[in-house]
């Protein structure tokens, strides 16, 4: 079997260059954030339609929310699948018909994963993804991307897999992709406490 190494082809864009003038999409989706890394990209990108998704988990007050009418402000506490499905149904009609670009910089991870899963189901297999990387994180390896209280540890919607009853508790295996935010990994490890790690 041959592998198409261009599937995940990626290259860097210099934010000081005129990168935005060289490309244009039919639809552009970004997760709202007041950070300039997100705002600059949103403002610069050329697209017929630009959509903000405003994660309720970020708890923006109304005066901080985007004023654009194409901004989706989901109800608080909506799970990622319900949130993304509502967003696609109400704000992204015709997404299958044109070119698509997604800025993933401000996305919450479960929402992003579910979005990709649902695009796959809709057979949208070609689209561009932007990510703005900071020059350096202020706190290096101690950077906290997720702040606040962890209320729940659970599989991401659409990725739950199949379940098997067992008389014992020794058959599961949890593989931890170690990286930043060790405290979140601790929560996962504790929540899947039946597993070998």
């Amino acid at each position, binding site marked *: 079997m041959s592998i198409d190494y261009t599937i995940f082809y990626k290259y860097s864009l210099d934010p000081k260059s005129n990168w935005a003038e060289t490309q244009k999409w039919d639809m552009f989706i970004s997760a709202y954030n007041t950070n300039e890394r997100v705002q600059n990209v949103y403002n610069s990108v050329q697209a017929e339609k630009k959509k903000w998704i405003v994660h309720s988990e970020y708890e923006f007050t109304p005066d901080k929310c985007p004023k654009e009418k194409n901004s989706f402000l989901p109800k608080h506490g909506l799970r990622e699948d319900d949130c993304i499905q509502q967003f696609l149904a109400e704000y992204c009609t015709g997404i299958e018909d044109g070119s698509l670009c997604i800025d993933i910089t401000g996305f919450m991870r479960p929402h992003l994963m579910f979005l990709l899963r649902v695009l796959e189901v809709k057979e949208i297999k070609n689209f561009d993804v932007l990510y703005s990387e900071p020059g350096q994180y202020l706190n290096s390896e101690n950077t906290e991307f997720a702040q606040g209280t962890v209320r729940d540890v659970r599989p991401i919607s659409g990725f*739950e*897999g199949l379940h098997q009853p067992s008389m014992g508790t020794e058959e599961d295996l949890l593989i931890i992709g170690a990286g930043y935010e060790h405290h979140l990994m601790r929560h996962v490890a504790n929540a899947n406490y039946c597993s070998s790690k």
Partner: protein
Amino acid sequence: MPEIDQPFDITKAVDFTDAQIASTWVDLPSGGFHKMVDPCSPMPLMLLGGKGSGRTHLMRFYSYSLQKLRSAGKNIVEYLKKEGYVGIYMRCEGLNAGRFDGKGQNSDAWDAIFAYYMDLWLAQLVIQTLGDAFQGHELILEIEASIVKEVSAIFDEDIGAEEPTLDGLIKALTALRREVDIAVNNAALTRTLGGLKIRSTRGRLVFGIPKIFASNLPILENVQFAYLIDELENLTEAQQKYMNTLIREKEPPSTFKVGSRLYGFRTQRTFSAGEENRVGSEYEQILLDSQLREHPKYNEFARQLVVRRLQGAGYLTIQSDTSTQQQKPDSFFETFQSSKFEQAQTSFINDNYENPTSRPWLKKLHKQLRESIQRKGLIGVSTEADIDRIISCVTCVEYPLLEKVNIFILYQDWYKNKNLIECAETIKTACHSLQEGNGAERHKHVLSHFKNDLLAQLLRETRQKQRYLGLQTFIDMSSGLPRHLLIVLKFIHRWSLFQGETPFEDAPISMSAQREGVLQASSWFFEDARATGGDTDFVQGSVERLARFFHAMRFSDKPVESSLTTFSFKETAISDLAQNTIRHAHDTSLLIRVITGAKDRNDEGVVAKYQLNPMICPRFDLPLSRRGTTPLNIDEVETIFGNSTDDFDKIIEERLVQMNAPFGRRKKRKGESLGGGKGQGFLPGLE
């Protein structure tokens, strides 16, 4: 080869193999756990307990896998008959119950699908369990096909079991569950359930399959099918409603023993015409950690637990049983020998302070007296010579603890505006009498109530770390939660190894390793509570304020209560926020509710009473034992647990005015009486 590698490294039952569950098992003396759970009883049981109460260990011990181990390779069917039950163990976490929600479906649809899925899950567990027990057994050979036929018949439509065997039945059930898994997972993507069919009536599999086995296999007559459902807290309220319905509608030979965290049992409602289950009627309830805490033999149980772990790791021989070795572990920890007026553990003071007058408490008293003379605020004391005379009277070089007792009594007299010269002379005489074994009732009273607090003050004022030493101290810290005892010992063991010692072998574990281990365990417990949802930061901040409040009082000149870690308050008078904070702190075991609520003297209303979990106490230099209780007024409760937290320092300051020389008087606050009337209906320090 040892059964376990390190004696205390594993502190969660889910991390143990079945064999380790069996080998580390310790029963409450006189078969207490069996009486508590009673798996043979048809009465359902809710087993509620905080994290680390041993609930999962207990439930797994009664599971079929452990029954099989206990049968030691003999005829398991006969063994089940002998024990009178078969334990069908299930962890709700495995259901991943959160996915039965949303996805464009209404709640009625999810209720039905979840019930169906859980029925399939339990049905498969029963068949797997019985299939394992009867594997190759002559009794099943002739009737296996008949059982499969009968089980297939209780479904509403053909389930397509291809082979007339129990394995074939399991395959068919697996296929049905996969069908649900796929439909539920895809609903997130497609917003439909894709025509998913529910093929059995709610509850029919759960009760029907045990009946079929029992009626076809006479050897199972009088054998209870005990569904051991663990981790109920992982189910939503609607899903728990289904569990409650099964309990309410249970049919013999099935019963339920359900385990949950304290806060995880969210509803008693059922689908049975909206009826609610009642304790004592539909089910019995056990609050595991409070039962263990109050159990007269918890101490004995905890020691046996330690012995069993040490035996498992090869540190103690297994030849003799755990009960005969339960005093042995005390010798593994370095402690102070008992001595007259705790001279042994205070000897460092004489070593460190050659000149007795340079001892911090005497210097402080001297300063306080001098400042009060300048304000002309003392009766009978007006000159430097008077001060010297007082200092001389309360000094007791040989026994620093008695010196602290003398000063404590002097402070009490100062508070009452007595002539301090006369009081000091009386104290001196009584102190001498006490050393000679005569009289000195007031000294004896103070020693019996405040000795630990005064020793703690001695340590703090001489910049020593507080001492939490010896196995009994660690058992006290665990406060009915066996895991806490194991965690304390785990950290102590690690510190001991880190310090180059050989723990549990030749020399006892050093005081330093014990101190560090206890502190680490205390911090771990405090931080671990953060992992449990809700507004944990605020709750932890509140508990920390409470601990600082107790700390300030313990290290005041004249603590009013001894060993203070308990408070009471009028529950109906405080805000919702404060009530919720206290409830959350209780749910996460940061606070322990003291069952014997004190009566309010005036209106006979019951006041709530809570104790700071002893696991937290070392972090704040607080005592582990509970004696005194301080009543908190409404302002204090709101400042600690409610929305008036900015006033916290002021609240402490007001309290301390009457506890530190020169002893002012506190202003009366809302909901409080400072002398008689409303408030606590018992004498301070004498509870």
